[in-house]
């Protein structure tokens, strides 16, 4: 079966925990909202940073899983600042294959992968004067790390526009490509398909290997941009 891949437009995010969290939540929830085909009570969430409202499934499991991954990603970003990174949301089917007589190999067949491309950049410091690479906890109301109000608002505006583009991109993708969506294995609950969120691992090369391995498993990967 085809594995459809969607490379989402790259987003320039500042090295701001709050910003990263908002952006990732928005994107991941939007994708999942379109893939969790069980009975859903949609929950509108307003982003605090932007005038964007996105929709969550209203499922606590999903929320928890997403938040955990985002925190892991933020930790990773702390250790690898100023880098382009990808977060991959994949949907797969579980196949039981009998490898040998008595063993079963559980194989994941990925049928859809979403790549969220972020370019996390350290923002120029101003007021504080000192540069520190420790974890920055940002009060959403204060933009203390931004170099100037104009730059920051321009940057934010650009990010908002890009985020909107990404959301439209998601909508377009889910509606254009529907034939590859497999039968629903999980009849109960909101989540219809097993999924996983992959963040870059400790080293870059390992992350690449993960992606490569996944591609091997899918069978007929189709790289679409």
């Amino acid at each position: 079966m085809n594995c459809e891949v969607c490379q989402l437009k790259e987003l320039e995010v500042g090295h701001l925990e709050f910003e990263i969290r908002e952006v990732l939540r928005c994107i991941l929830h939007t994708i999942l909202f379109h893939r969790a085909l069980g009975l859903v009570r949609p929950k509108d969430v307003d982003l605090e940073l932007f005038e964007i409202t996105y929709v969550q499934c209203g499922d606590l499991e999903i929320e928890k899983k997403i938040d955990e991954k985002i925190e892991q990603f933020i930790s990773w970003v702390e250790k690898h600042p100023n880098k382009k990174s990808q977060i991959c949301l994949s949907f797969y089917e579980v196949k039981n294959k009998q490898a040998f007589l008595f063993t079963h190999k559980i194989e994941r067949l990925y049928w859809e992968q979403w790549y969220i491309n972020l370019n996390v950049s350290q923002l120029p410091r101003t007021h504080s004067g000192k540069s520190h690479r420790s974890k920055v906890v940002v009060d959403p109301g204060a933009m203390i790390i931004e170099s100037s109000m104009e730059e920051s608002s321009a940057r934010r505006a650009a990010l908002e526009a890009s985020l909107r583009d990404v959301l439209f991109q998601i909508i377009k993708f889910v509606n254009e490509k529907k034939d590859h969506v497999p039968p629903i294995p999980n009849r109960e609950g909101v989540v219809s398909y097993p999924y996983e969120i992959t963040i870059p691992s400790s080293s870059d090369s390992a992350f690449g290997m993960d992606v490569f391995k996944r591609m091997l498993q899918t069978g007929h990967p189709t790289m679409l941009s």
Partner: protein
Amino acid sequence: MDLQSNSQPELGKLEQIISQFLLKSLHIILDSRIPSLRPHDRSGDLSSANRVRKSDKWFNLVLGDRPAALENLNFWHRNVMDPMIIDIILVHEGSNSSSVDNLYTASTAGTSIETVIERWVVQYESPRNVAPQAGEMAASYKRTYKKSIVLLRSLYTQMRLLPVYRAFRQLSSSSQAYNFDIIYKVSSFGDPFTRAEEELMEEYSFPPVEAFPGRLSVSVTYRSTLSDFNIEPSTTMPPKIITDYVGSPATDPLRSFPTSEKGVRAISFPLRGARPPSTPLERPHSWTSGFHRAAPFMQNQHLVRSPPAYRPSPTFSDFPSSPSDMYGNRVQNYRLLSNQRATTCDEYQLSPPFSPSSSPSPPTYFYGGNPNQMQTRKSSETAPVTIPATMTGRSSRYLSPNFSDPNRNSLPPLSPRSIRNDPSSQESPSGIRSFRRIDSSRAGEVTAGITNCHAGQKAIKDSREDSGRFSGPLSSSGSPRIGFSRSSSRLSFQDDLDDFGFSCPFDVDDVDPPDFQPRYLNFSKSTVMN
């Protein structure tokens, strides 16, 4: 032609899916655009509403209470082949309306302007000359259902990303009164935009969902920005209650407070006086909300082919008895192929909550393209649902019906039957359920019931005032309509449910009345019921 023998369960199911899709998309759109339709206490998430209504189960999207307007859709949009065009209209001030002395004079010539800021078109596009193959039909409605779930999710998401959403949120917030309002109009046609308007608008079409033999499509034309409109919080100050004035009870315990006006009544701009419609034939096939008299783009409708819409003083008594006459000579029937059973596809495990088709009864609404016929059918139109979208502050958003006003359209008295509440019905507090099973002889009572039931729930404005035109369905564009058979099998889809993961809300022994009655698009004289 006797449809019963040609009925195909799959076509009936597809028809239900299409019909419910239209309803659901209308629900989504109105919920995200028309503040007055939302319940007061609705919060962003619906987790507090544990009850899942039947309507929620469709497409696995819980939206909560359907606005009463959706019940109208059942009335007029009887042909699933017709496009459903939803205009979202911004009611805003004209250039010379901001003076204070205009505020409270409701009867002066209004300077409010109505502009269509979004037009949604939801339709089932069907090729005309395709005969459905039974095999194709079998599995296709399940595919259609699954894909339409995704489409509706996208629609829901998209509603929040378009420019109008912000204006909607502003209006919905209870803290401010604004100088604009958003109303809507649903019809099966739309006035084309002027070139000037088109230049300001963008289009977006969702990729259609295959719904063999046709497809479901949703598209929108929308204003890319609302900055052209002078939208801002209302400048009028609400009456403030000063509690500590000299001599007040606060300062003088022996006095008592005078009764004071509560709440905000900030009418930002005058209402237009309502003008009675000239002739019923000029009514477009649509209904709408809002105080205002028909917007200019509505009034010039030359609706030769449309049946009359709302009649100012409906007399529900003279009901035509036989709806079939309307259909017999108009509709082309689908040649349904052999009724072999659908092979179950365990691949598609989403189960539409089909309603079992109950004993057939004719719709209360008739199609007709023939104006002559429609003359006699005028009274068959339902009274419009009046859903006011007020321009006032939040507290006066819902007005109480003023039945004593002679100028208003006086509604026929409630018939006890029409407001019978089905005990098993959970959906709507009104007696709307009752009309679903009615036959033509009781349709009049039902329509009255509908309107008055709305009065019970929310404010009902007289339709004339709020230009709630109601019209009979459709349009005869002269194109042959491909009809669907009525699904006559009560049980056939039940077997399919074993393959599905979701239980059907309409079980066989469910005492609830069906949420949906299949549309009887094809009628021959032999199928007149009751």
